[in-house]
């Protein structure tokens, strides 16, 4: 298939490169892992099969071969030629047709998952694109016009549809290891005020703007330590940064909290300049919520294999 038009930041991703952090290699991988996995299992793939991530804009893909595919994640206005199609539907596109994702009506990142997955560079145990160092995925870079992406199309599957990940009013967080070192005002503000997702955000981190700065009781300097996506770190400007999939492997800014793994996908879907509210939970709740997400994916996998 060939990319005919693109205004989105599109790249090939999987669940990331987890085993090379000790060499400073960023994890990379899908921003909304739950939608990514949902899309993959819906089309009969293993959850960690390379798919195309589309962020922010549109894309037009000419298909020279038929494929069974779905769109998951952000709710896109999408078409096969002129015929509108919907998210979380397992569909077939025939050879000679064009798949068009025009714009996201809600959410930020969508996934095009194809039965059999896409061909991509497999580097350091992962297909995901490492934008920072420029390897993996499609030549270590974002897709552009004229690129030929090869779908390992397997056989036709019946058309089925499933529900996406349910929306929530608040994003759940757990306390970070420096929680106690922040002022009571900072903690209150984090849990009661709205934060605006800055347009300076990217796959490395989402920057949050707020009226009340989050301050520490006393300035501290931490020795660098391992971090991961979801960590909410606060530089001395007092405006938090949520680390995302392309984030650095180690950091030294104080961490007031962490977005729970179950909700990090939902958080990644917040559009620039939209408002986000947080809710504090404990680690047991976080683990339970993650288990429920995994169960949801497994249920879809089972349903998809039976139909």
């Amino acid at each position, binding site marked *: 298939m060939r990319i005919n038009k693109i205004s989105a930041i599109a790249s090939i991703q999987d669940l990331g490169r*987890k*085993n090379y*952090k*000790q*060499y*400073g*290699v*960023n994890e990379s991988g899908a921003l909304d892992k739950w939608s990514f996995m949902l899309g993959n299992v819906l089309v009969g793939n293993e959850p960690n099969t390379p798919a195309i991530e589309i962020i922010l804009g549109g894309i037009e893909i000419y298909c020279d071969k038929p494929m069974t595919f779905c769109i998951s994640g952000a709710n896109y206005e999408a078409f096969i030629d002129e015929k509108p199609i919907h998210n979380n539907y397992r569909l077939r596109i025939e050879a000679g047709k064009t798949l068009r994702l025009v714009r996201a009506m809600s959410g930020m990142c969508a996934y095009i998952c194809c039965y059999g997955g896409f061909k991509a560079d497999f*580097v350091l145990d992962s297909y995901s694109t*490492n934008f*920072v*160092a*420029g*390897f993996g995925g499609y030549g270590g870079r974002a897709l552009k016009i004229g690129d030929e992406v090869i779908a390992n199309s397997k056989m036709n599957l019946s058309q089925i549809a499933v529900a996406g990940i349910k929306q929530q009013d608040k994003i759940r967080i*757990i306390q*970070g*290891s420096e929680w106690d070192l922040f002022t009571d005002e900072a903690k209150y503000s984090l849990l009661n005020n709205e934060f605006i997702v800055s347009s*300076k955000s990217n796959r*490395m981190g989402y920057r949050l703007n707020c009226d009340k700065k989050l301050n520490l009781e006393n300035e501290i*300097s*931490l*020795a*660098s*330590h*391992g*971090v*991961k996506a*979801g*960590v909410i770190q606060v*530089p*001395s*400007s007092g405006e938090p940064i949520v680390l995302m999939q392309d984030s*650095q*492997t*180690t*950091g*030294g*800014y104080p*961490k007031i909290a*962490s977005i*729970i*793994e179950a909700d990090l996908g939902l958080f990644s879907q917040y559009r620039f300049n939209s408002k986000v509210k947080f809710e504090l939970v404990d*680690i*047991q709740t*976080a*683990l339970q919520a*993650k*288990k429920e997400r*995994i169960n949801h994916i497994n249920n879809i996998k089972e349903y998809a294999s039976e139909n």
Partner: protein
Amino acid sequence: MFNEFVITSETTLTLYSSSKISIEQQKICWSFERLAKSLDNVLNVVVGMNTICVYTNDVNYKELCKLKLHLDSLYKETKPIELDGKLIEIPVDYGGELGFDLLNLAKLKKLSIKEVVDIHTKPIYTVYFIGFLPGFAYLGGLDNILNTPRLSIPRTKIPAGSVGIGGAQTGIYPLEAPGGWNIIGNTSVKLFDINKEQPSLLKAGDRLKFVVNSIKESL
């Protein structure tokens, strides 16, 4: 701060050091990494600056707590190891357009540019760990005179090869990346190359010496 592992997320346990950064503590971290890697439910271990972060598989609360206790007792028994690293010289162009924070840093420290460079090039640094970015070496051995806080707002772009100071640490940016360190110079040495069998030029235990390639007194 602590001397035991803290549950820092659903899949991470972190040990922060309680005392001043030391090479002795780092040798314990290096040793611990080797021991902890093979434990059940451990996916990966990342050594930081006198800190350790253990990444786990998907575990439940009981397994997470059990692993914490296991790691705590293993850490208490861990003896330091010596790593025999190579000595690498890194030529640096100090100051100027690519060492944009040198002037300010010298002013802040009430030192001349030359004095800052002399202090920075004097020690033989030890690579404590690789982190932050592919191939980014954290170096121990910075003279405390040059200890400088990170920027309050990290820059969105730092050029590849930038030599910087962040708190008590100094290091080199292997790739263009955002960062909050004070940049005092630049090197043309390639620190990360995915086409090499060992993509990172430096590894934990290596020793490094900065040498002056040039010094610019102004921007």
